[in-house]
């Protein structure tokens, strides 16, 4: 649907209003990171300062959660990259019995609320007497990241089509050579985009993590604790900015990587 007609004024205002509604809170976070007030969320801020960045930098309790979050995000998106790509490749190959079931299975971990994924894993750990560790966090994250990679890869596989792969085999390449020289270069940017989105999703995840982390603290869990029992509010604001940027940059990169292709990354969250 596309029209050359001019939109009604009310619609334009409502649409732009909607967009502003989506962005205004994020802008506010940036403002609050510079406030001089550290006991309340007073607006407008009584004064502005940059000291909180230095304070946050020197807070020893921020670094371990940051490292843990980075490690978890890297491991989960790596795993999701492998599993999601394999699944997409299989789905691109042929129509086979149970296709719909498989695509449902892939989507389920993000279609169902995070609390279910989290509580399910928690139940399984309880039944299996599995102690909490980085591994238990990754288990949960990789599960819901698979679909992100899968969605990106499936669209690209579809565009790659069968004839390119046949041409490669026809010219003497075995399956592995075809994968390395034809599939991978054509899939590369879609996979990179999928991996980045998965990274962003994992880095930011808090609901599933609270069920699978035990006593460990990722950066979002650290933030959650600060929100419930604030100590230095502006430091939390600074960390919020860091988390925001750490998720924002991969998303933007993913957008530019897949721009122009008819499928653009991110629709599948």
């Amino acid at each position, binding site marked *: 649907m596309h029209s050359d007609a001019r939109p009604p004024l009310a619609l334009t205002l409502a649409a732009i209003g909607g967009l502003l509604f989506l962005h205004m809170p994020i802008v506010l976070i940036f403002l609050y990171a510079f406030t001089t007030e550290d006991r309340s969320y007073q607006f407008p801020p009584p004064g502005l300062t940059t000291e909180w960045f230095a304070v946050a930098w020197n807070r020893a309790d921020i670094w371990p959660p940051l490292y843990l979050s980075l490690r978890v995000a890297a491991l989960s998106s790596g795993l999701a990259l492998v599993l999601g790509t394999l699944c997409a490749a299989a789905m691109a190959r042929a129509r086979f019995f149970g296709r719909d079931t498989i695509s449902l299975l892939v989507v389920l971990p993000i279609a169902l609320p995070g609390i279910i994924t989290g509580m399910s894993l928690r139940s399984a750990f309880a039944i299996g007497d599995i102690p909490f560790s980085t591994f238990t966090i990754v288990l949960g994250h990789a599960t819901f990241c698979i679909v992100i990679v899968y969605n990106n890869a499936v669209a690209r596989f579809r565009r790659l089509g069968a004839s*390119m792969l046949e041409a490669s085999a026809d010219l*003497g390449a075995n399956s592995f050579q075809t994968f390395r020289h034809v599939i991978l*270069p054509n899939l590369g940017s879609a996979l990179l985009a999928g991996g980045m989105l998965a990274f962003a999703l994992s880095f930011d995840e808090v609901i599933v993590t609270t069920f699978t982390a035990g006593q460990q603290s990722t950066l979002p869990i650290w933030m959650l604790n600060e929100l419930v029992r604030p100590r230095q509010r502006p430091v939390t604001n600074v960390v919020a900015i860091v988390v925001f940027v750490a998720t924002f940059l991969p998303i933007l990169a993913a957008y530019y990587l897949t721009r122009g292709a008819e499928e653009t990354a991110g629709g599948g969250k």
Partner: protein
Amino acid sequence: MTPAVEFQSVSRHFGAVKAVDRVDLTIAEGSFFAMLGPSGSGKTTCLRLISGFEMPTSGAVRIFGEDMGTVPPNRRHVNTVFQDYALFPHMSVRENVAYGLMVKGVDRRSREARAEEMLALVKLDGFGGRRPAQLSGGQRQRVALARALVNEPRVLLLDEPLGALDLKLREAMQDELKSLQQRLGITFVFVTHDQGEALSMADRVAVFNEGRVAQVGTPEDIYERPATRFVADFVGSSNVLAPAVTEAFGGPRAWASLRPEAIRLAPGGRVRGTVTGARYLGAGTRLEVRTGALPRTPSDHHDGGIAVLVPAGAAVPGVGAEVALDWDAGALHLMGEEP
């Protein structure tokens, strides 16, 4: 001499669709072999049976006497020029052409030299650094050709390689392909649904109909002596005469074909009729003539009429004119028992 390709009662069925059905074929080494037939008649499937992208439901495909039953496409000494060219978009033209050598482990310097040679062969010297997206349709087609030929295949398969080209380019490429084939001595198997292309380029033609081979022969065989009504009609739109009509035209009671260009307008000819239509073709005019004696038969594609080709330069009677038709005795070609 062992034939280059041999089909022994090969079938390929997709569920209820008999894409290829009990086909026997022999393609001699060094020949230019055309597979001709309407859309959906099984030509592409036959080609894919040779290249290995389809496996026979039953029967055997042999290449130089060797059963291909267990040989995957990448190990067959056969290469394909795909209908949509299937060039690799992420590689330069040179890399595309060198691809087959690369996967065989030929070192970069020699494979690129070979690629350049091949590009020169298809008259694309200097295009090696471009991407396929930067080429015209005809140029892409040549790249696809060079990319296949660099592997020195013993059989080259071409699936409607000229289908996407405009008429002029098409004719130029027909000549080029033909001379290339003669120079290299490689067996070419060429799929087309254009009968002119098949007749002018091939040494032998197989006409396909609904997954079966209706006739195999030289272009002259196919054109002059069609074995079935289908061949007669599909190749050059011949007049197909039902047995009763053949009899009325002075032949025996059997199916026959009569080429439009074999018929002359001559006063005192064998059959009289009325011109009901005329279509100017440039090289001549095609008349539709209704002969009074002609009964309508359901299988008669010319609607009870008979097509006559009047060569350019000759006088063309107008619609409604009374004419008499004549032909040499040998022009009436009788076809075997109709399947």
